């Protein structure tokens, strides 16, 4: 299981990023995102900001739980009172290629008889299901809405929020500025080790 954590400011500007792996089930805490898929994390997390904004005014809760899914990646969100977003991407099986967009089979010929187009859609469906199925047993066993998972992520977020409030109390930190403190990063890593 690999995680990508990002703090996004009120103007959708990134403030902080951190990647880590699980320590549960004998994990060593190292993120195993593939190099060619790593940049996708930023896109996926960024695209889930729309979901956060949809929920922002409908609930007063800070922890928004699992809000979005992209292939085998799940995104959980947390909103601080000052509307800073904490986003955590959970990828149960980062080594699979499903994080990359599945290549949509292009119709080989431009001849568009009704039967042919139907057969291409059918084949594309089987392709995607096959890709999702290949995501190993990890992906299928991971349940983002299980109470234990939700609580673990909530505790992680609350811990980071604690460190974030301390950061924001500093007179040398202004809202929406990137967080550069190495101690903050260490705190995030410690919370990750403790809860995820």
């Amino acid at each position, binding site marked *: 299981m690999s995680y990508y954590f990002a703090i996004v400011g*009120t103007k959708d500007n990134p403030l902080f990023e951190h990647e880590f792996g699980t320590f549960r089930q004998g994990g060593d805490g190292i993120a195993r995102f593939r190099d060619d898929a790593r940049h996708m994390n930023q896109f996926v997390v960024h695209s889930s900001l729309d979901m956060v904004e949809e929920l*922002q*005014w*409908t*609930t*007063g*809760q*800070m922890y928004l739980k699992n809000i979005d899914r992209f292939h085998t990646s799940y995104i959980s969100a947390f*909103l*601080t*009172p*000052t*509307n800073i977003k904490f986003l955590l991407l959970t990828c149960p099986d980062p080594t699979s290629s499903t994080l990359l967009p599945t290549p949509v089979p292009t119709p080989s010929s431009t001849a568009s008889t009704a039967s042919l187009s139907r057969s291409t859609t059918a084949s594309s469906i089987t392709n995607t299901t096959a890709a999702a199925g290949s995501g190993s047993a990890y992906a299928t066993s991971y349940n983002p809405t299980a109470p234990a998972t939700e609580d673990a992520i909530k505790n992680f977020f*609350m811990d980071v*929020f*604690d*460190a*974030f*409030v*301390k*950061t*924001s*109390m*500093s007179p040398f930190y*202004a*809202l929406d500025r990137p967080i550069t*403190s*190495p*101690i*903050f990063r260490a*705190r995030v890593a410690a919370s990750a080790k403790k809860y995820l």
Partner: protein
Amino acid sequence: MSTPGLRYPSNRKSIYDRHLSRSKGAELSRASFAYLFVEMIGYAQRRVTGIADLEKRLNAQGYPIGLRLLDLLLYRTASSSSSSSSSLSASGPRPTRILPLLQFITTTLWRHLFGRPADALERSAASAQEYMVTDNEPLVNSYVSVPREMSSLNCAAFVAGIIEGVCDGAGFATQEVTAHWAGGQAEGTGGGGEGGAAAENMWPGRTIFLIRFKEEVVEREDMLEKAGR
């Protein structure tokens, strides 16, 4: 772990080692605050062009405090609500509507800053965008005596800045938050005969904080109202 560019205090404790709820009930000496506030006014008064400019500067000094207090106070309600459920935590600690936000300001924020809730909260009859918070005798003004030629100056503009910071931080953008003497400007110029109302005679320092939200905030409020949330 010595990191270049980062200096540790001699006891090796950074701000991250301090507990956020420990200073919850701590009170500051009023004399030391009064001294600090005098210096702040003196600082703000340098090179200002007029009273409006001075109030703007006091407002700007309060603004970052509001942003920080919003996070801090809601952090405390959130961390304490797990054991005891407060009225705020019923729908979550973040205020998403104007009324809960203003209630947060007049009760939680006011109690934290001044040790008591604000004296009144009213909605302006003239405009849906305007709300008024009244304080009968603002703590910040208790040792301030405004000179006659600056009679319209209200140093509670500093508190107005704090309110503005809270509103803006919570996503309720304001046009401006200003502090006004309740009796108008009559007191300084002509002996305060126009004030009239009994409350104003009883509380000569009565201050009204006028909060003017931006249009889009009221629009969003209406939309949420219609959606029944």
